Structure formats: structure tokens, C-alpha cells
């Protein structure tokens, strides 16, 4: 499984109950409180599984996770 924008958006809707109609790739997810803490954990687990990597505690930050674009950018760096 690869990490994609569509995959993240589908996960947000199907598993976390997020209304993704207004969620763009640069929409702030964590800092805007779209997601609660429990959902954040779920989403990071999904990102790790789909992206095939494991985040270090210091990598869990808004720069790497706060939007779909940022998650994809981080995943791409892990792959390279």
C-alpha cells in the first residue's frame, strides 16, 4: 500500500468520520482541531502503515503532519 492524497482523504472520511468536502491538500488538520487526539493517533498509524515507515517522536510535529501535502512530503523524504 502506498501513501496517497486520495488514500488519506478516504481514511479521514471512512474511518475518522471527517467531512472531507472542504479538506484540501493544504488544509490544516491537527492545528485547526479538525481531529481530536484519538483520531490523530489513528491517522499517524495509517500514515506509517501506508508509507512503510515508523516516525520518531521528534518527527511527530505539525511541519510533518498538519496537512495532506506535509504528510506526503515527509513520506517522500523517508522513501528517498
Amino acid at each position: 500500500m502506498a501513501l496517497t492524497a486520495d488514500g488519506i482523504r478516504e481514511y479521514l472520511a471512512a474511518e475518522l468520520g471527517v467531512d472531507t468536502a472542504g479538506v484540501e491538500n493544504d488544509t490544516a488538520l491537527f492545528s485547526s482541531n479538525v481531529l481530536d487526539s484519538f483520531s490523530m493517533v489513528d491517522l499517524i498509524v495509517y500514515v506509517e502503515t501506508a508509507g512503510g515507515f515508523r516516525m520518531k517522536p521528534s518527527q511527530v510535529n505539525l511541519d510533518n503532519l498538519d496537512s495532506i501535502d506535509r504528510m506526503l512530503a515527509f513520506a517522500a523524504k523517508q522513501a528517498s
Partner: protein
Amino acid sequence: MSDEGILIVGSPRSGTTLLRRLLDAHPSIACPGETNVFGAAARFLRRDPVAEGLEFGVLSGLALAGFEPDDVMGRVRDLAFGFMEDIAKRADKPRWAEKSAMDAFYLDEIRNVCGERVRYVAIVRHGLDVAKSVGDLCDRNDGYLPEFHEYVRRDSHRFVAFAKAWVDTTGAVLELAKERPDQTVLVRYEDLVADPVATMQRIFTSIGEEYVDGLVETALTKSSGAGLGDWKTYERPKVTSASIDRWKEFTPATLSLLAPIVNPTLEAAGYDPVPARPLPTPEQARRRFELDLAIRAMRARGPSGDEAAGDDA
């Protein structure tokens, strides 16, 4: 079938108090606050099996002293019924009804005591809403009533304990309704609060009484005597459905624990099963815990404290 008395039975926090106040509002029925008479009778008659089939308790002990079990049971029944008859006489009403929420834990023995001399008004409620409400009750009491404490001793996750208690008590209620259909009217809490008039009409017809116009509208506005466990109904002047679906406040993790416990009984009682994801493996649970800590640290740092993207890649 006798109409001597009416027993309201249901898992605690299933609407039994609401039912008792609605029944007490009827001009022919006296339903006081919890007397605990029948639960006490059941505990008096408790039988504990010991070696080689012998049952330890008052029935065996008195049988060895020459008192037949039926005689003992009859005397206990007369004692309990006598109190209830006096309560009805004092209220100047021809019939008595009794509700004590914890009776659901002793239903088998109560059925033995009462035989066919009472009618049962049985109520069921969604198990996870009950579990939530039991949690409120225990918080209010700053502790656990003995019946719940037994479950909490076995399961330290208190909602697991409450869910198991609900399974046992509701199972007993459903069994009663199945085995004594002519003696029992079974209702759901959700139906009672959605359409109290229709539900009470069904109940009163079942117990041989006429519904009185305006009964539902006025029942909670007048005092029906103080009763242990009455606190919530006195806070609301009318029947309301505000307490339905509170179980949806549980976290997904808690629902994962509770769903397998309650779903079979939920379905037996006519409810939809609770959807829940599978429980995480221990490794997954540890990873989730690590991520939860990292997220808390991220929140604590706030946007200005974030490290640059790509560090430690």
C-alpha cells in the same frame, strides 16, 4: 393468573424509576419508592451449593428443622406481600406495585417467591447507555453498590464490569418475558421515552387497568413519595429522550472492548449490534501509546516550538 401485585423489573438505570412514578400516578396503583423488600426476600432465601449437591442456606437449614421449603417460601411471600398491601391501603388504592432496581440481580429467586401471584412490567434499555448511566450513579455515590462491586472486583475496567452486569440482568429479564409471556409485559426504554402515552397504554392494558388521560403529562410534576434511586426523575418534570445514545460518547477503544460483551444480548433484546473495530494487538497498543505521548508533547510545544520539517529523517 393473579393480579395481587405488580413488579417492575429491569436492569438498574433502565428506566425502572420512571416506570414506577408513571404507575404510581394511576389512581388504582400504589408504587412507592424502593422498598427493597423482594430483593431482601431473595437474599434471605439464597442458596449456595456445597459438597454433594447440598445447598447451604435457610431453606435447607429449616428443612432439616422440619419446615418444608414451600412453607418457608410462603411465609416469606406473605411477609413481603403484607408490607405492600399495607402500603396500598395507606395510599387508599386497591393495587400495589413495587420497583427496586437491584431486584434484577435476584430475579430467579424473586420469581420463586412470587410464583404466579404478580404481574411483571419488564423494561430493557440499550446496554451501553445503561453502562454510561451506571457510571454516573457510581460517581454520584462515590462508590459501588454491592451488586456492581462484585463485577468491578472481577473486571478493573469499570465499563466492562457494568456491561457484564447489564448482560446478566437483562438476560434474566428477557428469560422472564420468554418463560412467562402471559404474566409479563416487556417494553423498551427508548420506546417509553419516545411515545410514553402509547407505551403506558400498552402496559396498563396488559395489567388490566384503563389508561387515564393526562397521566403521563402530570406524573412527574407531582410527588410520589421519596424513593431511593429517584434522583434523576425528580430533576426532570417531564418524560424526555435526552439520555438516549449517550454510549456514542465512548471512545473507539472502549467500544472495541464493550461491543463483544453486549452485542449478543443487544440483538436478543431487539437492538442493532454496536459496530466496533477489532482490539489492537499488544504491539499495536504500545505503538498507539507512544504516538499519544508524542502528540501530547507536540500540542504542548505549540506551533512556535515545532522542529524543522525533515529533521531526523
